[in-house]
């Protein structure tokens, strides 16, 4: 296999992994399938674009011609994506979690409410920004690295590094902080967590904001290669959901493995002559159906059995 194809696959896996881990975390900790995750992606993309339009010229005037401009711009856009994503997560918490989290069939109710939020958000974005797509500045430049003979574009390298650092930080926080312990307790046994004085209402808030921020980061990173638009979150949402399902909804390691597999599958499908890019989704769904037929618990179940 061409080495650059592997880089392309890992790059896709990194972005989709951010979405899938958010979906998986939400499901396993608070029992919500968040169909508004795509809306979070789109809103964060617009947030980053708005920050670039509003503060970009001032930043260019202050740092233009220096080596600091690009890192400053990257920090600003990433920060805007993370903050807007987290704030949109807060909005979903208010609208789709607080009013219904203790009602019967919360999983189905929240799915419907978040789907409604997703549709409404697309309309609001269309109304506010119009149908024309927006482009984010190329914060990582146009060059490429030569790593052991493999050409890696700057944006690909930065995406892989940024995602690895961000996910590493999230996993460390989950593993070592008090709030992380509470979230993991809720992921394993919500009733047991309640008996340990852990409130679902209090714990859900950081989870919603964190997963929103991950979607925001994914939006900024993917927007280096595709445009920001009101419906930009649809494909990442579908990819994130399918990867989360493939990984065994609720398993973070399963989501990571699922993202790598789906990224590789997408890269491979694109170069097979009789398939090509237009069959990417078809091949992915066929693959996921095949895996779930053989292993209904997904890859997460496989990982659990390996550990046992």
């Amino acid at each position, binding site marked *: 296999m061409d080495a650059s194809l592997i880089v392309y696959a890992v790059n896709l896996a990194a972005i989709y992994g951010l979405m899938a881990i958010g979906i998986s975390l939400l499901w396993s900790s608070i029992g919500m399938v968040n169909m508004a995750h795509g809306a979070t992606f789109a809103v964060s993309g617009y947030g980053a674009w708005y920050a670039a339009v509003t503060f970009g010229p001032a930043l260019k005037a202050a740092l233009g011609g220096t080596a600091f401009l690009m890192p400053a711009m990257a920090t600003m856009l990433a920060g805007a994506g993370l903050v807007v994503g987290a704030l949109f997560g807060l909005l979903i918490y208010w609208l789709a979690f607080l009013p219904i989290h203790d009602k019967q069939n919360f999983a189905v109710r929240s799915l419907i409410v978040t789907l409604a939020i997703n549709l409404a958000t697309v309309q609001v974005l269309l109304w506010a920004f119009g149908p024309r797509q927006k482009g984010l500045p190329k914060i990582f430049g146009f060059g490429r690295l030569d790593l052991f003979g493999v050409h890696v574009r700057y944006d690909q390298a930065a995406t892989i590094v940024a995602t690895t650092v961000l996910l590493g930080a999230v996993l460390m926080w989950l593993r070592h902080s*008090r709030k992380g312990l509470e979230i993991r307790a809720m992921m394993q*046994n919500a009733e047991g967590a309640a008996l*340990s004085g*852990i409130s679902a209402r209090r714990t859900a808030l950081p989870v919603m904001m964190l997963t929103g921020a991950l979607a925001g980061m994914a939006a900024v990173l993917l927007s280096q290669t595709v445009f920001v638009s009101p419906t930009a979150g649809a494909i990442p949402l579908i990819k994130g959901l399918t990867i989360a399902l493939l990984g065994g909804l609720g398993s973070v390691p399963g989501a990571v493995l699922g993202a790598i597999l789906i990224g590789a599958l997408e890269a491979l499908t694109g170069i097979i002559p009789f398939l090509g890019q237009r069959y990417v989704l078809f091949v992915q769904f066929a693959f996921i159906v095949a895996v779930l037929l053989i292993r209904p618990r997904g890859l997460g179940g496989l990982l659990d059995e390996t550990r046992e």
Partner: protein
Amino acid sequence: MSKLLEVKGLSAGYGPLRVLHEIDFSVDRGERIAIVGLNGHGKTTLFRAITHLVGWQRGTIRFDGTEIGGVRSLGEGRRTPSIIRLGIAMTPQGDAIFPGLTVRQHLDCGAYSKLAWRERARRRERIFDIFPPLRDLQGALVGKLSGGERRMVSVGRALMVDAQLYLVDEPSLGLAPKISRRVVDALMAIGLEDRAMVIAEQNVSLLTGKVDRMIGMHAGRLRGEVGHVELG
């Protein structure tokens, strides 16, 4: 002794199924009581009603002077954390509740108050003094432990915080007789002072002579009461 828990006219159940019928009982500070009865007669539901884990309930429950019952439960588990934080620690029936956490993390989950969290290392040591086998298993996943060890972890979690009332559900369930006695002995060794403990158990002989009072439960109703002097 003042009353720590007072239950009056408590009925509770799941959906259309009513399990508890007009329960009246109280627990004094410093008291250790047992509620005994066969499986399926409402002991666990009583504990779950006190902690608001059942979907429907009626009657009054006063804990340390605060009304924690209600005409209608707000939803399973919604009020549970706030009731637990008033000073009730419950060890549920069955296995330890977080099998994917290590023993140390599992115990830390019980340290929900700011003080308990700050002092968690010292409190863990106290738990290891009560249950010595856990000391060497701190880094082990709870799901990989034996039934007796898991029960020790579960009880230890409830002891990590300074609760006023301990509710221990079926401490002997699924355990070998020797291990059951060890867990019960550890529960009896806990100094109560102005706190109280209620143990739900189907194995009457395990608690005979060890508790202040035994209350029988049958078909969702409390049936009679004996003190330990008579049983001993």
